[in-house]
């Protein structure tokens, strides 16, 4: 616990360094550059825009430490007045009433991470009726007017994992370990992985022997799937394209039990410290990372641009069924052991760029 406080202190000191390193680390950080060019006007003596971000839960480290923290930080930099972070405890009904309460408090703009994208539509309509613009963060809320979208491209994320896996194992039997089928992102990642793998399946280079979704993103179920896949194929597996770190832990334990850890490439996403350790130990091939801190600060940027009547700095647009919405696609990067593959950085580069997430000491490097 004491480590956390130290981290907080470090953040203040290294704030600017971190951004510089981040820009350096990934060549294509156009969004970051764009963010830096926005004039930091404050409204001076006039009214400050009161804004808030509603997070779906605090279940994952990212929500509070990255998305929420960096939204509020950027909002302050832009001269807005952010409200304290709140979480909807993964409950769409609670989230709906939280939005109503926000409107009662008289906010000027809202960044919403929907618990359920369809359930959030009604809440966004209420905001629009009250002339409060809404930025959809992390997910895309459909069929309703939005001021902007700050989200990763889930399909692209899948493609990145698919590319990494197929480069490491160009032929053989593949196991696909997917997240909870009830979540949009699990299906999008699967779609992206398949976009890369399908041509290889068609050419006969690879065979997908197992392809399953794990309810509640359970690592234990992922382990069971791979145990079954290994038994059914007499350990003849070339790669496990797993789409999240929590699943990869179970997968790797199943491989260890057969003495195969490190011999079969395994992918993951989230760059959790434990996953980074497994990457260093070469038991895991890659863990993909979305710049969640950037996602939070870009949500604040998009909201500010809408409120201040400035042109949007988003790097693309998306038709969500209502119309074209500015979409800032948040960069994704693969973290690998030495970072030599395309679109990838090494674990140490990653740790240096994201000290608020993990430190070199924690990883023992």
């Amino acid at each position, binding site marked *: 616990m004491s480590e956390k406080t130290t981290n907080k202190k470090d953040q203040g000191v290294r704030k600017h360094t971190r951004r510089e390193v981040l820009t350096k680390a990934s060549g294509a950080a156009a969004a970051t550059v764009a963010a830096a060019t926005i004039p930091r006007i404050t409204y001076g003596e006039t009214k400050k825009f009161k804004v808030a971000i509603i997070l779906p839960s605090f279940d994952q480290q990212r929500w509070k430490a990255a998305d929420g923290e960096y939204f509020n930080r950027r909002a302050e930099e832009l001269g807005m007045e952010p409200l304290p972070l709140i979480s909807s405890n993964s409950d769409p009904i609670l989230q709906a009433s939280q939005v109503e309460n926000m409107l009662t408090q008289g906010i000027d703009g809202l960044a919403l991470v929907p618990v359920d994208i369809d359930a959030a539509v009604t809440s966004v309509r209420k905001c629009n009726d009250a002339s409060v613009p809404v930025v959809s963060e992390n997910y895309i809320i459909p069929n309703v007017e939005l001021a902007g979208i700050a989200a990763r491209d889930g399909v692209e994320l899948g493609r990145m994992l698919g590319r990494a896996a197929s480069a490491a194992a160009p032929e053989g039997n593949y196991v696909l370990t997917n997240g909870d089928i009830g979540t949009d992102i699990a299906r999008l990642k699967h779609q992206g992985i398949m976009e890369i793998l399908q041509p290889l399946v068609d050419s006969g280079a690879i065979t997908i022997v197992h392809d*399953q979704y794990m309810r509640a993103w359970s690592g234990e179920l992922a*382990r069971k799937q791979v145990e079954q896949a290994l038994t*059914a194929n007499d350990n003849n597996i070339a790669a496990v394209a797993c789409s999240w770190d929590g699943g990869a832990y179970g997968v790797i334990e199943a491989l*260890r039990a057969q003495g195969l850890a490190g011999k079969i490439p395994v992918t993951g996403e989230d760059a959790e410290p434990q996953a980074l350790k497994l990457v260093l130990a070469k038991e895991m091939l890659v863990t993909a990372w979305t710049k969640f801190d950037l996602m939070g600060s870009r949500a604040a940027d998009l909201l500010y641009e809408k409120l201040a009547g400035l042109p949007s700095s988003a790097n693309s647009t998306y038709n969500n069924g209502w119309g074209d919405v500015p979409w800032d696609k948040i960069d994704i990067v693969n973290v690998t052991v030495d970072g030599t593959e395309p679109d990838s950085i090494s674990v140490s580069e990653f740790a240096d760029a994201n000290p608020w997430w993990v430190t070199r000491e924690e990883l023992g490097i």
Partner: protein
Amino acid sequence: MRFPNLFFISGRIPVAQLRALTLVGVLVGVWIVFQVLTDGLFLSPRNLTTLTIQVAITAILAVGIVMVMVPGHIDLSIGSAVAFTGVFAALLVDPVRGLGFTTDPLLICAITIGLGLLIGMWQGFWVAWMGVPAFIVTLASLLALRGAALTITGGSTVTHNGLLTFLAADFISASWTAIAMAVVVSGYSITKYFDWRARSRIADPDRPLSFFAAAGFPVLLMGLLAIAVTGIAFSYRGTPVSIAILGAVIAIVTFLMSRTVFGRRLYAIGGNPSAAIYAGINSKLNVFVAFTLMGSLYAMAGLVLDGRVGVAVPNAGIALELAVIASAVIGGTSLFGGIGTPLGAVIGALLLESLNNGMGLMNIDTNYQMIANGLVLLVAVYLDKRGRASGR
């Protein structure tokens, strides 16, 4: 129903025994179907070993919940309690997110089991002495312990640096398995022999108790099981540690439930709570003890789960309680109390896990596995209800 006196005590099949045999029959049927569908993979020593490791967590908890359900209570807190004890164990190790307190696996296990006992006592206290329905007490824990697990970890994964992996990955050698099985079978035979002696003394002289039915047949079954376990151990890698733990839990809880005053009282409380009180049974104390013992099993399951996944995840075990309750009910435990055996619950768990394992080998979508589990639960409870209505 009258049968030759060769097999069954007093010529009439005891309902519990009949039900257990039916369930074993269904299990064997499922196994044969999968054996055919998977071209002989399902019953290979390797897959049987994997299957038993996979069922260990649910089965340990299913044994425990019998102690809670027999006196007429329920436990909804299982998934959250397992996740909480699991992350607690890892926090003892993790130097960054946790305490970095110890690296002795046995000490970690002991402390975690202590925590499990405390959780059990807390729930037992509210159910037994404060009179809050177990449904509510454990529902409160389901929420609170999940929240606590997320709070103490900050929502992130915690590592135990592989210290607990031995619980899921290590094996006890085949020779030790053979020795342990020999001890188990001899112990079982001796108790069954004394059982037969004691019961023949009070049996109706016109309908003498068959030695084969009372002692020989159960010992034969146990012997066959022991041979199977030893055979699998010799042809694959030995006995998994998690299965040794499960075996010990089954043995201890079965002993408590069937051979001690404590167990008899739990059945009495569940069978007729008022009669139990008038008979002078301290139901509050017995229920409290049952919940407390269940608490230690949360910890054991949490530790094995940590070993299985290699890390501790605060979101682990979601809806695990439902699989555990389903296993116990399929295994013949009544939701209204008074009826149920630990072994039945284990067989129930094995049936559900066999469906998942077999369908997994065939790469059938996990969604269909859930549908199959649901249907099996429904049919099992219907057959159980019908069986009991006609049996009495």
